C-alpha cells in the first residue's frame, strides 16, 4: 500500500459510513426535528458542547418516593443534549445504575442526585414483575464500557441513557419515542410509557 492509499483510506471510510448511517436513518432525520441530532446541532451552533455546569440549590428531595425501576434525570444549565445531562436507573436500597467515562457502567449511591440544578424522577408504567426483570438485566451490565456517543445498536459501548433504554427494551418496552440513533436523558421524559413523579428545576 503506497503513501497516498494509506492516508486516504480512513477519510473515504468516514464519508462512506456517514452516508450509510444517514441513508439508513433518512426518515427519522428528515421528519423528526425532536431528534437528539438536532438538539446537538442547535446547541453546537450556540456554543454549548458539554454536559453543562452550575451549582445546585438546596432543597428537600423526596428520595423516599422512589421505587426500583424508576428513572432519575439530573441536569445542569447549558447542557448540549437537552434539559437533562444524566440519567440513572434506581435499583432499590439507595443504589442507582449509572455510566460514567471513568467508572464505566457502575452502581452508585443515590445521594449525589441532590447536586443537580434540574432533577426529575420518572416511573415506567409497567408491572412490578417486569421491573424486577429490568433491574436484574441492568445489574448484569455493571463493568461494561462507557462511550459518550454510543449508538443504541452496539452491545459493547454504553452511556448513562442507552444502558437504561436497553434494560427496558430487552423486556419489550421501548422508552425512546423518537426511535433515534442515540438516546438522550430527556427522551425518557417524553416517553408515553412513563409518568413524572417528581420534578425540580430552576
Amino acid at each position: 500500500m503506497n503513501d497516498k492509499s494509506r492516508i486516504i483510506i480512513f477519510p473515504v471510510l468516514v464519508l462512506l459510513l456517514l452516508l450509510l448511517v444517514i441513508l439508513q436513518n433518512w426518515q427519522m432525520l428528515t421528519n423528526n426535528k425532536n431528534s437528539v441530532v438536532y438538539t446537538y446541532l442547535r446547541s453546537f451552533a450556540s456554543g454549548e458542547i458539554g454536559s453543562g455546569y452550575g451549582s445546585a440549590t438546596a432543597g428537600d428531595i423526596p428520595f423516599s418516593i422512589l421505587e426500583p425501576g424508576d428513572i432519575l434525570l439530573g441536569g445542569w444549565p447549558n447542557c448540549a443534549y437537552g434539559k437533562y445531562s444524566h440519567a440513572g436507573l434506581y435499583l432499590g436500597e439507595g443504589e442507582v445504575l449509572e455510566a460514567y467515562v471513568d467508572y464505566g457502567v457502575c452502581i452508585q449511591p443515590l445521594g449525589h442526585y441532590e447536586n443537580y440544578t434540574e432533577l426529575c424522577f420518572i416511573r415506567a408504567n409497567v408491572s412490578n414483575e417486569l421491573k424486577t426483570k429490568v433491574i436484574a438485566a441492568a445489574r448484569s451490565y455493571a463493568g461494561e464500557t462507557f462511550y459518550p456517543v454510543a449508538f443504541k445498536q452496539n452491545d459493547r459501548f454504553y452511556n448513562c441513557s442507552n444502558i437504561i433504554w436497553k434494560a427496558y427494551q430487552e423486556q419489550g418496552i421501548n422508552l425512546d419515542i423518537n426511535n433515534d440513533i442515540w438516546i438522550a436523558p430527556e427522551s425518557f421524559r417524553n416517553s408515553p410509557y412513563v409518568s413524572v413523579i417528581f420534578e425540580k428545576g430552576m
Partner: protein
Amino acid sequence: MRLYVIQLTAILAVWLGMYYPGLDIVLALLYLLIIWWEASYKNLSLFLQCLVGLAWQLPALYLSLSIIMGLDQATDFSYYFVFMLQLWHTPVMPLATLMPNLIRLDKPFYYYELFVFAPLLWTIYLLPWFRRKKLLQKKFNPLA
C-alpha cells in the same frame, strides 16, 4: 501530520463503525495495520521515528500524565480530561471491549487501558524500525 490525519479520521470512522457492531473491531485492526505500514515505509532514523511517534501521541500522553499526576484537578474541566483521552483512543476502544470486564479499585479495566494505549501505540510505531534494521543486517551479512 500524516499520522494526525490518520488518527483524526480513524476516530470518526471507528465511531461510525460502532453503528454496525463488529465493523468497529475490523476498523480498529485496520487502524493498527495502517499505523504499522506507515512506520514500515518510512526510512527514518531511530531518533526521528521516536520523535514522530511521540509527537503523534503527545495529546494522549499529555492528558494521561495530567490525570495521573492530578494536574487536571487544577482546572474546572477535570472530567473532560478522561473524556478527551477516551475520544482520542476511539480507534482502539473496540479492542478494549474484547477484554474481560474486570473492576479494580472501583474502576473498570478499560479505564487503566486508556493510560497504556499511548505508550503502546508509540511502541507499535517504533517496532517496524527494529524489524527493518534486522532485515537489512540479514541482507548484508557477509557470513550468510
